[in-house]
């Protein structure tokens, strides 16, 4: 059974990273167009990324906005999820629906609506406002995942902590919050990528600032050249190496911790 599942899982992962597998050779082409297999190999489109400051700035802006939006939506959304699950109040269903609605409404409508408001309050071309707008699109993930997890939580555990003398906040922090970590982690990942890949709202409200998807989109009117797959491959490599470095640091800490504890023993 496990073996069957493992095979199935491998096939599934292959399907998921299929575009990535083809993007690597496509990004290494000499041609101005996307072609597979490439006729001549070159790093031309990788250097094109670094020669054009707009690409680098777009990548940096995407990370800034993405991290900011994740932070805002995770904080604000988790707090709201707690109230939505634990408290009884009038209009709860309606409020929950409103928190989820940003996901339902086509973004072009939200984009137009935000643009009109941003114009009035002179928020166009304001990175903070853009980050806040992205966090609105990310909140539904946080509310849905965290409140789902919270409903499954066995509240007697928290009560037990209270009985043992913990304050409500302390009981929540020590017992419930650790339980929420997997779903908060999943929610923050979805929130980050909701922002990282957001295009239409950004097109409307960002003024001249370009995030990566906007930078790609602005080119698409005319052409798509292999810089675009090159960027994708580099981002993936960056994340893989980030993960690798994180893992190395973790291992080193672990070893140090182990030596300390064994020394103490």
């Amino acid at each position: 059974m496990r073996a069957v599942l493992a095979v199935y899982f491998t096939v599934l992962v292959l399907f998921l990273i299929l575009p990535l597998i083809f993007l690597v050779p496509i990004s290494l082409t000499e041609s101005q167009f996307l072609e597979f297999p490439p006729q001549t190999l070159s790093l031309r489109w990788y250097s094109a990324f670094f020669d054009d400051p707009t690409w680098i700035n777009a990548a940096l802006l995407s990370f800034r906005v993405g991290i900011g939006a994740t932070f805002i939506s995770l904080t604000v959304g988790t707090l709201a999820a707690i109230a939505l699950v634990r408290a009884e109040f009038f209009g709860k269903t309606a409020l929950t629906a409103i928190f989820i609605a940003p996901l339902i409404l086509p973004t072009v409508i939200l984009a137009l609506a935000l643009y009109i408001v941003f114009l009035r309050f002179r928020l166009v071309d304001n990175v903070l406002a853009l980050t806040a707008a992205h966090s609105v699109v990310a909140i539904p993930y946080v509310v849905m995942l965290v409140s789902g997890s919270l409903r499954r939580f066995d509240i007697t555990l928290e009560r037990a902590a209270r009985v043992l003398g913990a304050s409500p906040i302390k009981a929540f922090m020590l017992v419930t919050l650790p339980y929420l970590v997997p779903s908060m982690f999943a929610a923050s990942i979805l929130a980050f990528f909701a922002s990282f890949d957001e295009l239409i709202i950004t097109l409307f409200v960002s003024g001249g600032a370009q995030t990566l998807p906007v930078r790609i989109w602005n080119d698409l009117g005319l052409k798509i050249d292999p810089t675009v797959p090159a960027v994708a491959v580099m981002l993936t490599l960056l994340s893989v190496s980030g993960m690798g470095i994180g893992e190395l640091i973790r291992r080193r800490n672990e070893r140090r911790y182990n030596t300390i504890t064994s020394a103490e023993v």
Partner: protein
Amino acid sequence: MKNRPTTLLLLLPAALLVGLLFVLPILGVLSLSVYGDSGFTLGPIRELVGSRVSLVVLERTFWQALTVSVICVVLGYPAAFFMSGLSTKLRAYLVYLILLPFWISILVRTYTWIIILGREGIINRTLAAFGFSPVQILYTDLAVRIAMVQILLPIVVLTCLASMLDIDKGLVKTARSLGATPTQAFVKVFLPLSLSGAATGGIICFILCLGFYVTPALLGGRRSILISNLIDIQVHQSLNWGFAAALATALLIITLACLALFRLLTRGRTEFSSLGVGR
């Protein structure tokens, strides 16, 4: 938690953010569907009811969303189950692997599918090498579905997995020690407990499908476009914002009605209680 001020305090930041940057702006635009230059009007709504293409595209959008989310849950659940049984460390790597495609913008992934699925693309060239005749995948609903599943599957796997990790492993063990076969333990204990996560994943997936825009436009045939594309035409080409607002309102109402119906059907069944649509 019966404490009103605390509840208010917890809700306030989210309510402010969503209120100022979603509810108010959106009400302004949605009101265009009943409020024109010359005051109250039923024009856009009449236009919507009389527009066959809008109704057809709406229906198509819901159908496409339903099929894609069912496919995603069916494919994603076993994958999440597999991952839930692994060691924390290995699981972390696999979560990471599944999330790799997220680093590639949807725009880029869409273009990659063109190269893979095309008439002279990688699949058809492979088929030709083995003597098969080429198949038309690109510019059909199938291509749109493949690409949408590829985009949404990680989200469903992640959501299912998060709920499976919530499950107390002791419960399954207890069931086993009480004489249940592994299958029984899975069906009677694990499955019901993890269903809510699968449902959350399926619903997130369904809702996201409703808003798909780039993928149907670039990979589908002329009959593959979804409601977002139609709304986009009204916003960008026709500048008919009233009609766009009417379409968006219809989509919002139908979607919320679907979610409410789903709640109603699963009422009282605790395994579905995490649907996010209140209780």
